[in-house]
């Protein structure tokens, strides 16, 4: 490699490149986009991580958060005092908010703060002062999203439960929370002193109690966590500190960034294929130059180095351009994901990203150019006397070729591992890409074989020539099928996955499916609400009583003992959770008995109550039919046994229960009710909710239509971010397509000119080219789409547990749209072939 440092090889590289600038730019354009995608994501990720590190205390708003699903006991409060520092308590629950001016109702997250929380960062409101005065003025701060939804303004009223408050400010941002959180439930802050007057915090209501701490003594939080752990465990309290929050956040962001990085990496790989194919043809055209140089005494090293230098410089230039572009794109990314971020990102240029961009861009260009470059070493000086009639890669031995394939695979795996920080994920990605590559290559080879084998000899000349172009020497079939197919695979998998998820959710909008659920209904309110529903023409589809209870033992063993037993397969969440069970004498159509015997009713004094458990909870409790479970029903122990196991369709938007009791046992227990109905449309739903909430402020409603709409918006926003990254692949695919077409133009120019000289009309030339591009486009897109159907099906089957039914129209239209695009790009790039006189083309193209 001493030739690399020789001034002559650099001079020759420059001399050779200067008249090929336009062509060489095409070669590198493919990797620019891929590098840009990498740099943008990596740099943004770095900026985000730095921001989170800098603002980690704002994420929690305190140094420590302790949480319970019940009021703190006196013992706990004394313990908290012993921890020292400044304390602030927050109560949080969900309730309907009613805005009388517009009549709007919406299930919201209500928060009441006592003390100085948030200690770090500030809730931003409009007007600014509202956050400081709302408690003293007994007013409410309301999420801007809710104000916008109902056209409400500061100064309007809002009713939470039994209390009517004035809205003194709109919430713009809460430290540590993403704006998208308001999509799930708009956030409303009310003074702590007014919680009781809402009447919403009652027995059976789901309320979270949080105590926040601020420590000014710089204490060792890790040590503190260790010290307090036994108390937290004993009292079933949840402990969250800054380090943990930062770790959770970092992990979530890291995972998203890793995923986006991989999506971007596919673009880079596509670029690599583009470079490989381009350099391959470029080198092939340089064989005679290399042979002449060899004739006059250049060594194989010197000859190869001339083109190696070009590849390195090209790669570096492409990487540099991509890096600059990527840094620019980074500034667009916050717009895409800001709603999901709990912090305002301070964007900086990440030198790690810049270095990585330069390295990967150059590396990919080089690795993918390895095959043609090494072939050049084998260029015999004899080619000055005789033309090379074999493929360039045939000059290389089988061992060398496999060595190069291995280097490419290792480079891909290495970089994927670097991005995902996991050998397994990197390996799976590499295998996936290799399989996709392999299948696409197989289709390409199969296509060429089929066309050759079943060549339609009876077709007109134009068709025969167009088809023959698919397997001609130096054809672009494999490259185009790879780049088109891989781009399509990626984009369509994203599209199909979204489609699959949405169609699964949309079942709830079927004509007969329930779309409105009222809950937290006190037993004495049940009749009244049913009357309102009757007046509004909404049928009572289901009316379930709900009794809250906790599991105390399984087969006589206490749940704590089972939880601590490392040999037990029972899951902690199933043992500790609060069970919201119901009782009735029959099964619903969403429930199917899979094991045991269903017993619908028993005598009130039955000693051992036969319950029906859902399949999921039986698995997580590591229990089965016949096992005894003892429940603590608000102080009263009730002994039961699992008489049957049900398969429950939890995807239905309706109350589903892990534990179903027979009628006759729980009727006298404290309970609330849930009523499920169906309204004709959104207007009817809103009116019914308004009537119910006005009459019974404690009742909350889940509007399925609204949830679906929200989910749709949410998925749309998330998928937009992903599609934005996938766009890089599409762009690269198009560039590879354009450059492949441009490169193949150089090859076919003589042939087209010859045809024109022999009397072919412009129309015939266009037809020949169109037929070739049509088949390439159709097959590339179709193969990509079929692979994406397969990958979506696999995703659905193994990950989402859904059955994917592809939309054939999408496949059909997608295939032809891409085929059309391929023809268009092909034609645009080839227009000089058919628009100019043959001689002019020959002079121009060979110059």
């Amino acid at each position, binding site marked *: 490699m001493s030739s690399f440092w020789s001034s002559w090889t650099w001079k020759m590289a420059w001399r*050779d490149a200067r008249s090929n600038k336009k062509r060489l730019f095409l070669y590198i354009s493919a990797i620019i986009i891929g590098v840009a995608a990498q740099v943008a994501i990596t740099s943004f990720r770095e900026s985000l991580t730095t921001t989170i590190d800098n603002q980690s205390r704002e994420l929690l708003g305190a140094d420590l958060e302790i949480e319970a699903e019940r009021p703190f006991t006196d013992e706990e409060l004394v313990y908290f005092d012993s921890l020292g520092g400044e304390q602030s308590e927050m109560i949080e629950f969900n309730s309907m908010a009613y805005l009388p001016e517009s009549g709007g109702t919406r299930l919201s997250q209500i928060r009441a703060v006592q003390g100085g929380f948030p200690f770090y960062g500030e809730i931003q409101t409009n007007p600014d002062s509202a956050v400081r005065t709302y408690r003293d003025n007994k007013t409410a701060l309301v999420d801007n999203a809710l104000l916008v939804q109902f056209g409400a303004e500061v100064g309007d009223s809002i009713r939470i439960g039994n209390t009517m408050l004035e809205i003194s400010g709109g919430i713009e941002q809460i430290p540590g929370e993403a704006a998208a959180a308001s999509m799930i439930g708009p956030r409303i802050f009310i003074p702590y002193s007014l919680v009781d007057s809402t009447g919403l915090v009652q027995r059976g209501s789901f309320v979270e109690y949080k105590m926040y701490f601020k420590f000014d003594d710089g204490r060792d939080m890790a040590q503190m966590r260790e010290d307090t752990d036994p108390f937290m465990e004993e009292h079933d309290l949840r402990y969250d500190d800054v380090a943990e929050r930062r770790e959770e956040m970092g992990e979530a962001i890291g995972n998203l960034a890793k995923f986006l990085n991989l999506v971007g990496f596919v673009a880079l790989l596509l670029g690599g294929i583009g470079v490989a194919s381009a350099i391959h043809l470029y080198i092939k055209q340089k064989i005679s130059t290399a042979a*002449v*140089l060899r004739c*006059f005494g250049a060594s194989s090293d010197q000859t190869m180095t001339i083109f190696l230098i070009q590849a390195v410089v090209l790669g570096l230039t492409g990487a540099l351009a991509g890096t600059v572009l990527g840094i620019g794109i980074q500034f667009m990314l916050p717009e895409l994901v800001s709603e999901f971020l709990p912090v305002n990102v301070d964007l900086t240029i990440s030198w790690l990203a810049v270095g990585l961009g330069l390295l990967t861009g150059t590396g990919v260009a080089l690795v993918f150019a390895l095959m043609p470059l090494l072939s050049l070493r084998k260029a015999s000086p004899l080619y000055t006397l005789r033309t090379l009639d074999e493929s360039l890669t045939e000059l290389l031995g089988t061992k060398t070729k496999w060595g190069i394939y291995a280097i490419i695979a290792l480079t891909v795996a290495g970089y994927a591992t670097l991005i995902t920080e996991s050998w397994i994920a990197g390996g799976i990605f590499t295998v996936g890409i290799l399989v996709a590559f392999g299948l696409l290559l197989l289709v390409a080879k199969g296509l060429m074989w089929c066309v050759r084998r079943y060549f339609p000899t009876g077709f007109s000349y134009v068709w025969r020539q167009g088809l023959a172009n698919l397997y001609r020497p130096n054809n672009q079939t494999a490259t185009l099928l790879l780049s088109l197919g891989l781009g399509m695979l990626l984009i369509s998998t994203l599209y199909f996955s979204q489609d699959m998820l949405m169609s699964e959710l949309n079942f709830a909008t079927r004509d007969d499916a329930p779309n409105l659920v009222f809950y937290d209904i006190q037993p004495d309110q049940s009749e009244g609400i049913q009357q309102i529903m009757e007046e509004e023409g909404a049928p009572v589809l289901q009316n379930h009583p709900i009794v809250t209870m906790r599991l105390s033992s399984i087969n006589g063993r206490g749940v704590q003992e089972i939880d601590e037993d490392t040999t037990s397969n029972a899951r902690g969440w199933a043992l500790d959770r609060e069970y919201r069970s119901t009782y009735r004498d029959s099964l619903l159509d969403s429930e199917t008995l899979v094991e045991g015997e269903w017993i619908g009713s028993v005598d009130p004094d039955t000693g051992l109550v036969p319950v029906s458990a859902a399949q999921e909870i039986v698995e997580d409790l590591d229990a089965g039919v016949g096992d005894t479970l003892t429940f603590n029903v608000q102080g009263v122990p009730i002994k039961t046994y699992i008489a049957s196991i049900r398969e429950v369709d939890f995807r239905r938007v309706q109350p589903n229960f892990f534990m179903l009791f027979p009628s006759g046992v729980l009727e006298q227990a404290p309970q609330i009710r849930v009523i499920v109905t169906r309204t004709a449309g959104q207007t009817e739903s809103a009116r019914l909710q308004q009537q119910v909430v006005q009459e019974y402020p404690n009742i909350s409603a889940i509007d399925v239509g609204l949830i679906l709409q929200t989910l749709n918006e949410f998925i749309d926003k998330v998928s937009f971010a992903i599609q934005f990254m996938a766009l890089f692949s599409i762009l690269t695919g198009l560039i590879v397509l354009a450059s492949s077409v441009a490169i193949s133009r150089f090859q076919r120019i003589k042939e087209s000119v010859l045809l024109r000289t022999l009397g072919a009309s412009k129309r015939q030339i266009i037809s020949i080219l169109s037929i070739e591009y049509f088949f390439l486009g159709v097959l590339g897109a179709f193969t990509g789409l079929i692979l994406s159907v397969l990958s979506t099906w696999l995703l659905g089957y193994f990950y989402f547990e859904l059955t994917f039914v592809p939309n054939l129209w999408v496949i059909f239209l997608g295939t032809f749209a891409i085929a059309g695009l391929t023809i268009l790009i092909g034609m645009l790039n080839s227009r000089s072939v058919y628009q100019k006189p043959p001689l002019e083309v020959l002079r121009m193209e060979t110059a």
Partner: protein
Amino acid sequence: MSSSNILEVTDLTQQFRSGDKKLTVLDAVSFTVSEGTICSIVGPSGSGKTTLLGLCAGLDRPTAGQVILNGITLGDLNEDERAAVRNDFVGFIFQTFQLIPTLTALENVMVPLELRGEATKEVSQYAKQLLEDVGLGDRLNHYPTQLSGGEQQRVAIARAFINKPDILFADEPTGNLDAETGETIENLLFDLNRANGTTLVIVTHDLELAHKCERVIQLKSGRIDSDEWINEPATANIKEA
């Protein structure tokens, strides 16, 4: 080897495999060429002329036999060592000119000496001189595509002489040119050859050109059919094989 023989070919055989068949292109060819000789190799298409030229210049390895060029046995050398021998002693002229399309006329001529790592300024001066000698002093910075066929071949001749080769191989040097241009090129080639005292081996099927040489080796089906002296040698010490 005799001290005056610049090229010695002994039992040179070249075979190619075409499917299951073995194709013998050259069959035990032997001859020598003395320094300063202008020698032509003629024969019909497929007689093995170009293959013989390629082997003599060390562009390929023979199936059997040996080539000694300027006292160096080419068979003992690897490809890069043979390249170095070519750079030191050999010049080439091709039927299709083989100019590097991305280099100007001047740069094309400079390549052989640049490969030796010689100082650019002197090389450039000498290359300009040679281009002037072949009548292209005003086309130094033209690219091959901007030159006519005859002009391209003149650049190729200038390039062939720049390293002051001991032996010059020309493969159908006028094959791609019209009669008039061809004749100009022939004259130029012979003039420069005489002026430099170079040994010249021309492969051609143009018998008129062949008969302007001192010696004509006729190939037929891979063997030497005849080998005759037709003109007085330009230099003394000519020995037949």
